[in-house]
């Protein structure tokens, strides 16, 4: 399969995608906060939604964001074994794996949905992750489902 199959138009260098980002309160949100207080620069592409736990994220939220025109979705939680609620991210891991396969089968580019783990002390890693994810989605171009019923 061609990695760049979804790219139809040349994307301008300036364009930044809109990435709906779910961060868990205890690790990733604190990690993002640390990136901010440490003045680490990263692309202004993410729109953060704070959730109690990555296990709290209903797959429907991710699907809804994508079909309503988000260019990408990023989800980040505590590293496996570090969950504030002990096992939330273990359940989330199974769920997200299945979700990514489903979206891929339905023709959403797998790079548009990104899952990762960032802990509260990994401010630099958070910036790194945002940069990587933004670049991956930027080369795919804007979502073809932009706006309601715009498909």
């Amino acid at each position: 399969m061609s990695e760049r199959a979804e790219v139809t138009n040349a994307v301008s260098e300036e364009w930044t995608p809109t990435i709906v980002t779910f961060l868990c309160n205890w690790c990733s949100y604190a990690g993002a906060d640390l990136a901010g207080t440490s003045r680490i620069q990263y692309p202004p592409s993410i729109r953060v939604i704070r959730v109690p736990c990555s296990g709290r994220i209903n797959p429907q939220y991710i699907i809804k964001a994508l079909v309503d025109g988000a260019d990408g979705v990023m989800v980040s939680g505590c590293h496996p074994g570090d969950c504030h609620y002990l096992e939330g991210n273990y359940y989330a891991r199974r769920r997200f794996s299945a979700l990514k396969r489903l979206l891929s089968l339905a023709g959403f580019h797998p790079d548009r949905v990104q899952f990762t783990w960032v802990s509260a002390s990994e401010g630099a890693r958070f910036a790194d992750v945002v940069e990587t994810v933004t670049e991956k989605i930027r080369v795919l171009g804007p979502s073809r489902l932009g706006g309601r019923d715009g498909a």
Partner: protein
Amino acid sequence: MMDYNKQSQKLKETAAKLLEEGTVEAVLGLKDNPEVGWPTPYFARTAGDVENLVWNEACFTNLANYLLDMRDKKVAIAAKGCDVRSIINLIVENQLKRENIVIIGIECSGMKQNDSLAAGCDACPSSIPNMYDIVVGADGSDTYKDLEMPNSGENVTEWAKNTTVDERFERFKKEIDKCILCYACRQACQGCYCKACFMDRKATPWEQVDPDTSTKMAFHLTRAMHLAGRCTDCGACEKVCPSGVNLKYLFKGLSEFVEEFYDFKAGVDMEAKPFANQYKQDDQQVAFLGGDTIVGV
């Protein structure tokens, strides 16, 4: 090979016996329905009702759903392989109790709808149900014949490996465009037994949700996600669809994924724990940034 008359005869005899003995309160089967064009679900409550039961090549309806209406009563069910897989799934999810159900396992080598093989039958693994109390063989006898199955089902994972994202999106979009958001697939599905569906929670009694593309996509994708590792591949969704939407491949693809990575298959083992209700600390991180990816499928 298949002798529907003899199977029908055996089914009626068995049902009458169960009802006369008082072993069960009702026998769930199918009854001819000229208005609809194929047999529809029917509860036989007395030995006299038994004459209404039919069994023929158009009995493709999945009856497992209807057991939920008689949750706490003892009921016998005329069940094919797909019904039994669904019953096992419902038992695993604590919706039914095994001791309340008498399964009349009817051997089936595939049903017909509109003169062609009914949806789901092409991928059916065996003519013998996974679980049964009373045997009705292909020729109406007490033994199963283990008939040869069509086995021409699509391997969705293979298909996905050989297509681009764009081609997959086109197929999805084509099916979505046909959908009129009537929810027939949801109503027919054994796994969709929620009292309040996420789609109904959005709607008010005087205004339904808009059947626009994004809503339809959200409905079908979320439903597929809810059925990850729970779909028993009975094909009920496809059989009831008035506009011929065929999104069963999404469900099938997810089942293949769950089986491959988490070693779980719905409708096989009554003692199994649902796939999303458990985890292993060493589960593969198949979808994660930097981990092994499933990009390409």
